[in-house]
């Protein structure tokens, strides 16, 4: 049977990382990690897993490849069990293999939790493997670059401090041609909410900032964006295993909201960012819940619709289907609100199967798409099950309120010739809403 060793992909970051390792060094770091950061969860999971293989069907990689080395339990057996069995004393090449499995063959989507009777959280185990690889300096080059960017400028895309307000002012200027009274309020203390986005938005998806401003303007909201670092809510350091940088990024994000004395943080349509802010980094920082309430766009749009603040001129006529992003569905339970918003906007919604908490992953999240071109083909071919699921809906428009999902789904759509296009809720709202000032 084939294993990870049979499908290694050259990556400069991984290769350079392992070239600096020795079995002694790996053993030392591994033992420190297990003793220092791991506890009852890892111990219970490793001991009580009965190797039943029921989780196989949970994983889109396995369902697409039908190769037993891609099942969730196989990924754990090729990484953590192997390391534990050797007490961490392994050849550097083993770390290369562990890193490729952990960073590029698991999206941490947690679908397998719905398959394991014992509730074993494979995503957590794989995160520990990533943490080890990070501590050993063995991370894929592309995603490590984004972590470096987080470290240096507190955003993922090397956006400089002055480029950020510049971009917002540019978008404000553009939008004012369509909506003369529109502002993108910067650093307004005491606003109702701080709107935060991921760094790719100012970098190359500025249209999304434009749209959000147009929606908030039409709804007459009291909002602000920060003028300082802390505006980026994305967090690739969370996925490289660099918990220290992860928490620095989130601390800056929360503290920026506190400095602005806003009532809450509204986050754009991104899944992993929500996971970082809502579920992961708060714990690392020692907050059980959030120092400032955190709301994802899906929920926020739902509120605006409930309050009658978003009015549309007509409904989207073509049939659409809904992709449930793992980080806001399995991660936050927004499946009903996502549907209510979509039904409010669209005439005809065709559900894909399985859906809601049981939906198949986009295969881009968990930092996998961020590992870049070397691993692109694997993740696209590794999600033919998603392509089949999309094709079966027979529709041409796909609503996906998550950036990573967009990236992954677009790749699948193009590879498998599905003839679909993906939309954010913001795209639809902007397209359909009443634009009073536009006349």
């Amino acid at each position, binding site marked *: 049977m084939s294993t990870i060793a049979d499908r290694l992909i050259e990556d400069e970051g991984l290769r350079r990382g392992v070239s600096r390792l020795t079995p002694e060094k790996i053993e030392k770091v591994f033992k420190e990690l297990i003793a220092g950061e791991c506890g009852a*969860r890892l111990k*219970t999971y490793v001991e009580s897993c009965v190797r039943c293989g029921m989780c196989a069907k949970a994983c889109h990689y396995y369902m697409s490849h039908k190769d037993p080395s891609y099942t969730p339990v196989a990924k754990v057996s090729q990484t953590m069990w192997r390391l534990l069995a050797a007490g961490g004393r392994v050849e550097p090449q083993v770390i290369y293999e562990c890193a490729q499995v952990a960073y590029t063959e698991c999206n941490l989507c947690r679908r397998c*939790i719905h398959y394991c009777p014992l*509730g074993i959280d494979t995503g957590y185990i794989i995160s520990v493997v990533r943490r080890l690889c990070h501590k050993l300096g063995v991370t894929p080059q592309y995603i490590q670059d984004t972590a470096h960017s987080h470290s240096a400028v507190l955003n993922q895309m090397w956006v400089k401090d002055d480029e950020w307000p510049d971009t917002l002012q540019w978008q404000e200027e553009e939008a004012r041609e369509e909506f003369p009274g529109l502002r993108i309020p910067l650093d307004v203390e005491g606003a109702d909410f701080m709107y935060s986005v991921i760094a790719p938005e100012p970098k190359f998806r500025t249209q999304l900032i434009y749209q959000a401003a147009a929606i908030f303007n039409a709804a007459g909201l009291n909002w602000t964006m920060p003028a300082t670092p802390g505006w980026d809510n994305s967090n690739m350091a969370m996925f490289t295993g660099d918990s220290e940088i992860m928490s620095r990024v989130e601390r800056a994000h929360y503290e920026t909201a506190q400095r602005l004395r806003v009532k809450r943080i509204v986050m754009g349509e991104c899944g992993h960012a929500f996971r970082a802010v809502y579920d992961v980094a708060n714990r690392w920082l020692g907050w059980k819940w959030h120092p400032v309430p955190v709301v994802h766009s899906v929920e926020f749009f739902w509120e605006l619709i409930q309050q009658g603040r978003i009015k549309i001129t007509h409904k989207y006529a073509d049939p659409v289907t809904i992709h449930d992003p793992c980080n806001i569905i399995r991660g936050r339970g927004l499946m009903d609100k996502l549907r209510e918003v979509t039904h409010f906007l669209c005439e005809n919604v065709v559900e894909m199967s399985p859906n809601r908490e049981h939906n198949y992953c986009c295969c881009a999240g968990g930092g996998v798409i961020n590992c870049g071109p070397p691993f692109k083909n694997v993740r696209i071919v590794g999600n033919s099950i998603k392509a089949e699921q999309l094709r079966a809906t027979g529709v041409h428009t796909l609503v996906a309120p998550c950036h990573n999902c967009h990236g992954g789904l677009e790749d699948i759509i193009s590879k498998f010739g599905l003839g679909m296009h993906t939309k954010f809720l913001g795209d639809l709202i902007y397209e359909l809403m009443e634009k009073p000032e536009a006349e």
Partner: protein
Amino acid sequence: MHALYDLAVGPLAWLAFGVFIIGSVYRLLAMRALALRKDGAFVAYVSWPHAFKSLAHWFTPFGALGWRENPGVTIATFIFHICLFLVPLFLMGHIVLFDTFRGWSWPALPDGAADVLAIVVVVICAYFLWRRLSVPEVRFVTSAQDVLVVSLVGLTFLTGVLAYHRIGDNLVLTTLHILSGEAMLVAIPFTRLSHMLFGVFSRGYIASEFGSVRHAKDW
């Protein structure tokens, strides 16, 4: 052989029950202490209402996605575990032993029913072993321990059935039956069989995370 039989029903039985009970309590308490010491940021979210709701789904055949997607394993697993508890605890032969040595007695299953259920356990053990060796995704992660623990359970029930039907040397089979049963008890706290101790807690924990933090079901 008589001496071995006496050893098996005497000191070894005490030892097996002792190791099983004390070992299990120790493992649970030690794991709890470890969780409180090292997993504070996760223990903080434990929510028993969510845990019980999820466990109710997982203890129901086909009550969770994983069960529905693996129907063969689901049926086998449920029948296997029910019989695994029912037969040893309510077998007339076992109750008689407790009655003789300790004066404890409780209602028993009809012998015929217990016999059928025991044979079912043996058949399902054979099915599990077959899966281990021939289903690729199971074989990929199977180690010697996995084969060993299933074989141990199978052997205990097989020897019990053979002894009951008086097939083969009764004393040898009965002794083997008792010894393998004792080995199984001793193995529970220290092998994969520890899922008997930890399973409800690992499921309950993740159910708490899903229920109280993520507001999504985990079944």
